[in-house]
């Protein structure tokens, strides 16, 4: 457990990334996970589909490597509130989200669609990039 905690801490602190091939299996219920993702307000920082103030998609975060690490990360968050308000990641002890529910949320996160169109394929984004070539007019 000690080693796992250390790994989680390192995964959080270091820019470690994992490829899709390195990801562990999914055992939970993604549909229920989506409901939990909404009920527990995960969307607040991560968006309804994994894009937000803190992205979940396309990050290659080591925290999402497998269910065990993900669960350890949720359990190992800070559990002493500072005096000043914070929007940091909350703590999720087992009495709040048991292992099964964590697996369900993990399954939902893993099911999130990637949505990164090529800029050239989107007319709006193309127009924005082209506007950079327009001369400055006072």
């Amino acid at each position, binding site marked *: 457990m000690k080693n796992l905690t250390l790994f989680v801490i390192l995964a959080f602190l270091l820019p470690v990334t994992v490829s899709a091939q390195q990801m562990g299996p999914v055992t939970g219920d993604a549909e229920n996970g989506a409901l939990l993702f909404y009920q527990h*307000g995960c969307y*607040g920082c991560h*968006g309804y589909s994994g894009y937000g103030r803190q992205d979940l998609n396309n990050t290659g975060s080591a925290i999402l490597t497998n269910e065990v690490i993900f669960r350890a990360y949720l359990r190992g968050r*800070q*559990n002493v509130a500072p005096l000043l308000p914070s929007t940091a*990641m909350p703590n999720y002890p087992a009495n709040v989200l048991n292992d099964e529910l964590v697996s369900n949320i993990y399954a939902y996160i893993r099911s999130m669609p990637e949505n990164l169109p090529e800029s050239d394929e989107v007319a709006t984004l193309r127009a924005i*990039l082209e506007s950079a070539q327009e001369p400055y007019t006072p």
Partner: protein
Amino acid sequence: MSNSEDKSNDKSNPESPKVGRRGFLKGAAAGAAAIAVTPAANAQSPSSYETTLSAPTYQQIERDTGMITAPSPDRSVLRPGSDLIVQALKDMGIEFVASNNGSSFEGIQESIANYGSPPNYMPEFITCLHEETSVDMANGYGKAEGKPMCAMLHGTIGIQHAAMAIYQAFYSGTPMLLIAGRDDGFIQAHTANDMAAMVRPFTKWDAQPKTLPECLDALHEAYRQAMTPPTGPVLVVIDMEIQKEEARDMVVPAFQPPVIDGIDVATARDIAQSLLDANNPRINVGQLRTPEGVAAAVKLAEVVGASTSTSATQGPMSFPQRHPLCGPGADTNNDFVLGLESESPNISLFRPTVESLTQSRDDMGVGFGGMRTNVPASGRGAPRQRPGTVMSIDAEGSIPVITGEAMRLISANQKSKIEARKANHASANQSAYVAALKEAVAEKKKGWDLSPVSTARIYAELWPLIKDEDWCLASPSNFSGGHHRQLWSHNKPYSYLGGQGAAGMGYGAGACGGAALAARGRNRMVVNVQTDGDMNYTPGVLWSAAHHQLPMLTVMHNNRAWHQELMFIQYLAGVRGRGTDRAHIGTTLRDPFIDYAKMAEAYGMAGEGPIEDPTLLAAALKRGVESVKNGEPYMIDVVTQPR
């Protein structure tokens, strides 16, 4: 009477029908009698109700008309004091007076409506549904134009309604003229001995004149105080007696605009010489006061060939973002940096801010945070040590002096070097801009096609539609991702008007309304990316915008929550080990959802939504822009990702 005083106040056109009060009452009585006799005259009337009517008695008519004694045929006041007050506002160039009507300033309101040719113009009375909106409008206008608009408040109750918005304007240092009516003989709860005391700690200056001449002087001084650093809101309390007294041949004194001191010539010469002697000078430009100040900064940078930084993506009145000299420049190793309302390792000029007024204004010792001298060493608003030599002097007032000295000192050899340097900077800054934009687009396209709509997509879809228009983003953008900072080009002094001032909610819609007032006569349009929490404080702004046909496109950033607070509660519940599934209590706007398109419709504003499908967004925005260009404000409700 001032030279510019309007003399076309007389409505006694012999051709126009005259109906005096006595005539009106007489007519009303006759009308009542006519109705009463109708049943008798028309026995075939199908209405059984009418047959029950009988002619009113003289006493009934007297009662119904309020026992009013007819006035003298002559007007009791030929030249009311309030006409002179309005003339003073005209002389100072006050375009608008925003107000929720109140009896304590009825003299001034009547004069705005009827005095002048045309009446209700310069200033125009802007009808607001809440005093907070009136002041927020003045805030938005003041930020956009760098000069005061007027908000008029009704006695003690109006001042208290307005207090929050005044507080925000004070922190922003926005120049604005507040007038509060005072009527000591009417409703006692609406008056006070010292009305301004309620907001004194967060206004720059106030006066409660005792006579009409004092009042006219006070208005002039109020304008000068509002515009002179530290700029901020000022308040003049005007008694009803002053508004209604007969002014006879009293003269409105000529208005003397403020003279704002800049740097002394000797120091300006030293700075100019340093800029000219440097191989690679730089000018960091923060928030100046007026569009003229921005133009002056551009001229200085061009004369000395300095690369510049800008705060135009953070707030108004700074260097144009796409100016060829704005950016990192060809060489970031600068050997002399001048800060204009911005930090510098060498020399910076900062005007005094409202915090410097604390000692003189906070006579109750409230100690508002951010204005205290004993501020905690940490947290938002804590003081920080500025690097280099800091001069407490208005940068805007100093720039022309520095430029003048530079133009006088510059040699032919320096001119040639400067031209070459400017070309290098222009090329490097363009490359840097393109690279930054590419990076931004790659970031902002995340979740492009997902529903609810990403906030980045709102700003992205807006840009191609407005980039060739004269636009002003008047809504604070911190809570909606601030995506314009990376995607849009902020080249005008009013491109982005910045935050709320005191980070209080309820500011956005009103400020956008004020910016739209400034925009209306200037072929400009205002964009309001409106957070839903903020909207619900003063939704009546929508009616004011529709009524006054303000060029304002409102795009709801409808995340159905006070989202910042939701995240705070989530974290606190989480670290207390209680789970986050109840954090929505008190922080969300659900059960039921609010329909903002219907809200707009109820206030008479065209609109559509809610839009949850991002593919429908661009067409809706296009309709909105077209509507606004045609003079009609428009609202699009977009259900969005949280941020």
